[in-house]
């Protein structure tokens, strides 16, 4: 990130404990508008916890989160949504008994973060959900429900999108289309923090990555550099780095 660009998101020394377990232990990073940052690491390294704290689902135990120049740690989730932060969930969480259209209508009505109103029909069409628009979300398969999570987040016009394992369950063609969509959104100025295990997806979508291990940051840089880093290879990639 260029030093003269004001970061959209600043995470400083973020801590989160569950009893005696330190899920986040002093994690810090910056994110500029339109930048896509990958958050990778082994299971239990704190990736989802990091998203949960930034999105207000968990209260942090230390450090601070600054969005557009203002501290937001401790803010309620619905207020963060209205300020321009939204997210998807590792296990999709649509409103199952509501129709696909109602799922996004609620977000557009209550969580819109300002700017031009979202054309919900166009949004659903862009995510190939338009033909399911009037069906209950419970009729969708798991991958479609994840896409609906994304649609609901996008219906709020976020400036920061937190994506938690969106690619799992998508077939290769869907993966490519999803990666392309995210790149288009980033090119339009939306910043993203992407948690993902699929390195091919991370490679297509992100500008740089942070590697977490046991709640600590062990690497920050490009994915290509990460695959050559001895610490990253030891705790996360193993032999995959050369596969």
């Amino acid at each position: 990130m260029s030093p003269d660009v004001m970061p959209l998101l600043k995470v400083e020394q973020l801590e989160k404990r569950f009893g005696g377990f330190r899920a986040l232990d002093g994690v810090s990073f910056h994110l500029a508008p339109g930048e896509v940052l990958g958050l990778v690491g082994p299971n239990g390294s704190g990736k989802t916890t990091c998203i949960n704290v930034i999105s207000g689902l968990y209260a942090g135990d230390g450090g601070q989160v600054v969005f557009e120049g203002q501290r937001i740690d401790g803010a309620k989730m619905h207020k963060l949504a209205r300020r321009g932060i939204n997210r998807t969930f590792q296990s999709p969480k649509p409103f199952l008994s509501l129709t696909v259209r109602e799922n996004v209508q609620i977000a557009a009505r209550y969580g819109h973060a300002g700017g031009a109103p979202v054309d919900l029909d166009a949004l659903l069409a862009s995510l190939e959900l338009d033909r399911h628009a009037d069906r209950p979300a419970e009729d969708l398969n798991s991958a479609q429900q994840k896409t609906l999570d994304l649609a609901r987040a996008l219906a709020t016009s976020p400036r920061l999108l937190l994506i938690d394992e969106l690619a799992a369950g998508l077939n290769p063609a869907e993966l490519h289309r999803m990666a392309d969509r995210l790149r288009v959104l980033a090119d339009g100025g939306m910043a993203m923090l992407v948690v993902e295990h699929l390195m091919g997806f991370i490679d297509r979508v992100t500008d740089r990555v942070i590697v977490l291990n046991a709640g600590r940051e062990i690497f920050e840089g490009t994915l290509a550099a990460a695959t050559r880093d001895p610490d990253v290879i030891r705790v996360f990639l193993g032999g995959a780095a050369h596969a």
Partner: protein
Amino acid sequence: MRDARSVSGLRRVFGDLLLAGVVVAVMAVAPSVYSNQLLLFNFVMFLTLSQGLNVIYGFTGYLPFGYVGFFGAGAYGFALAVMHLHAPPLAAMAVGAAAALVLAVILTPLFRLSGAYFAIANLAAAQAVYEIVSNPALEDITKGPYGVSLSGVFAPETSYAVSVAILAGTLLLVVWLRNSRFGLSLRAIKEDPISAAMAGVAVVRGRTIAWLCSALIAGLVGGAFAWQISVFYPETAFSAQFSIFAVVFTLFGGAATLTGPLLGVFILYGIYNTIGITVPQYFQLIYGTLIVALVLFLPNGLVSLLTKRGIRVP
């Protein structure tokens, strides 16, 4: 496409309003064709209480087993206003409603609980209010366990008309919740409060509004009940039967709909008043069988027979 959606939306609202209007009209004219006004009042009372419970359970998923606490607070609020302030009945109704609202505000921390814990805590809270009201040490204020007599304001026709007006208002509220964005946000909260919050819905605020509306309805019905019967005891106004009937009627018909609780009251309270009085042993058997069958085969209520087939029920 949008026009088609708005036309279908208007049709839905019209269907809901038509059903609500028919029920209110039937209950309004019923005393002129059927002489047992107390029975008719009980029907109106349970129609309203079931819809009041529907507001909090059907739209947010919180099942208040102690719903009678608001009803009792309304009845005693009415009685205290009449006895101590010599308030006219309509003003006393407002006091009863305010008492229920105050109780609801006091109980808002219960929303930290969920499921059975919320239901049981709410039941305990209603019992606590009953214990306070029936305490002999408070005889000078509440008449303690000896009950209240409000014969000076006894006016069954007027109190019946007011109870029908409360029913009308309650049905309109449910129609609005079923067709408004706010109602949609409550259903989102019921489905998944975390997702609802991330969609920008103020979850605590939405739940609290539904909770207060639900309590207000029970408080108004409680006030109308006190006005209608004029003489009652704490165990009457805080009888668990009010909660149980409201819960069973709502679940039997189907929550989050207008039709479900109405069906529940007309069918189950109808059975209760036909065979329940004359042959109570068969009533218990039939009632129990119906409820067991419902839980086993139609957990979403009678209306789910239609909604499962994609048919929209008002």
